């Protein structure tokens, strides 16, 4: 709950900032290039002798049956839990960087303690309601 005034940044700082993430972007490209190159080299060396049996879904040697759609709904609960907790961890990091005495101090610690304790209360609730057990 605070207000945001975009602070003016020096052009050189922004250039530096963009360059760092440009490096990340270059690495995305590099990874794809490496995958492509290896597959390209592989395509020159490997054989290709198509037979229909090779393209059958593998089910330990027996003929595959049915479809593969149904899965346990429990995974959905874990996914929801994850979203909640992961978003909350994002809020912990800004405090962590400024946690010390000359930064946010006891006030910040009090804030984060309340935050984490409410989080723990939520976890305790889930635990008690049996959502963490593989029932």
């Amino acid at each position: 709950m605070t207000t945001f005034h975009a602070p003016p940044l020096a052009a050189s700082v922004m250039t530096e900032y963009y360059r760092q993430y440009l490096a990340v972007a270059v690495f995305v490209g590099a990874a794809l290039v490496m995958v492509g190159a290896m597959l390209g080299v592989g395509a020159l060396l490997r054989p290709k002798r198509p037979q229909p049996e090779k393209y059958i879904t593998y089910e330990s040697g027996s003929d595959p049956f049915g479809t593969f759609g149904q899965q346990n709904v429990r995974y959905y609960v874990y996914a929801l839990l994850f979203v909640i907790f992961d978003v909350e961890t994002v809020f912990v990091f800004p405090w962590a960087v400024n946690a010390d005495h000359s930064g946010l101090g006891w006030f910040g610690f009090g804030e984060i303690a309340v935050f984490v304790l409410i989080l723990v209360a939520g976890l305790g609730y889930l635990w008690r309601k049996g959502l963490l057990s593989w029932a």
Partner: protein
Amino acid sequence: MILGVAASLVAHNPRIDWFGIAPEGTLVATAVAVLLLDLVMPRRDSWQTSRLASVGVLVSLGFVVALYERHGGTTPMFGGAYVVDNYAIALKGFFLVVAYVTILLAVDYIGEGDYYQGEFYFLLLTSVLGMTVMTSARDLITIFVALETISIPTYVLAGYRKHDRRSNEAALKYYLIGAISSAFMLYGMSLIYGVTNSTLLSDISDKVGQTGHGKVLAVAIFLSLIGFAFKVSAVPFHWWAPDTYEGAPTPVTAFLSVASKAGGFVAMLNIIFFGFSNRSNVWWVVAWLLAILSMTLGNLTALRQTNIVRMLAYSSIAQGGFMLVPFAAYGIARDHGHLSVAQTSFQAVVIYLLIYGAMNLGAFGCVIAVARRTRSADIEGYGGLFTTSPALTVCLSMFLASLTGIPPLAGWFAKFVMFRSAIDAGGWAGTSLAIVAGVNSVIAAYYYLNVVRTMWFKAPATEAGPVQVPSALGFSIALCTVLVLAIGVYPQLVGHIGDLAAKAASVATGS
């Protein structure tokens, strides 16, 4: 080390008025305590959580009263994003009373059905927390966070009868509408931030007052208003409301139609009066259209309803239209340069909200009581209610008459301040608003009084004994009755609160 702790508290403590946020702090603590208490309680004792919840609400209310007694004036926190002035205090008190009455309405309904009890009160308290924060919010982000804190628990509450398809439909519709309205609102807010480079309403008000960015600001304000129009179910963004109100458990419907709606109106008050005042030429037309459409369509549709909950849902849309009248009036007056109308129109919205809360909650209380016997909400089922349950009939008649606006019940004063703001605004726009509001009051009288007629003069549909009213429900109905009567006879009760609020607001707007 202790000295170090003390020193660091002094050195790094942002200026926080702990007393000022004590009501909210109490609500947070109570909500968490309710949730944890429910975990350790055996299932058959979980109704006890309602006690804890109501005690928490009352303690919070005590802090609000103490804050009013403090006479500290406005207390800005977080760089002006959070202000505890008399306007905020008055509405905090309103929301907490509504929360208390809702708990009373719900305790037997929730206790007797097969519901999760602790979670119900937890969600209710969380929503109320959002409302109390909203009253103090003077910043776009705070407003948005408060609005979501209000809304998200109510999505769950609307679907609380989870084995009932209509309740599921109610929750889903409400949720989807909430998501859409948030999207509109956020888009508008992001444009406002883009133009003004601030999320603080006071800064926005200054920047908006300067020339330039006309088209972008128009789009931004328009989108924000549409978002709020969804929240307060103003026509033509109202179509979710009747289904949601009918499907949700009735105490939740009472809460939605009073507290949740009021939360939306408070957000609108904040953003329009504190943020967009200086661009009234953009938004008064929108407010004017929304007001006229909501009053007319809400009332005409309410005429045709045979289910009393749906009737009250449409009537609350129409009442929302009445509450939009002062907004439009303020915009019109500002456009003409009558700055004095700011006070009366602000006052009118606050007063209307307070009175509407008392009478609508009372009406829903009676509906819940009657439904305990008839298990339905058909208006036909109210036939001959007077012969079996005279006291309840008198109360419900009073609430309906008050909703109509008949003196000496509170509703007349709400209508009076609303008309006054429209007439003060003047011009063709103000006059037309007043005329439409007048015609609509007459239309509304027909369907409200039709229920009264059914209760007093029709023969009972079935042979049935008197309605058994549990003590909590009875107390809440009695409380609303007393309020409606007292305010009607002595309107200065809320008039004073409205004055205080408007004075605080005029400090903030500088008009």
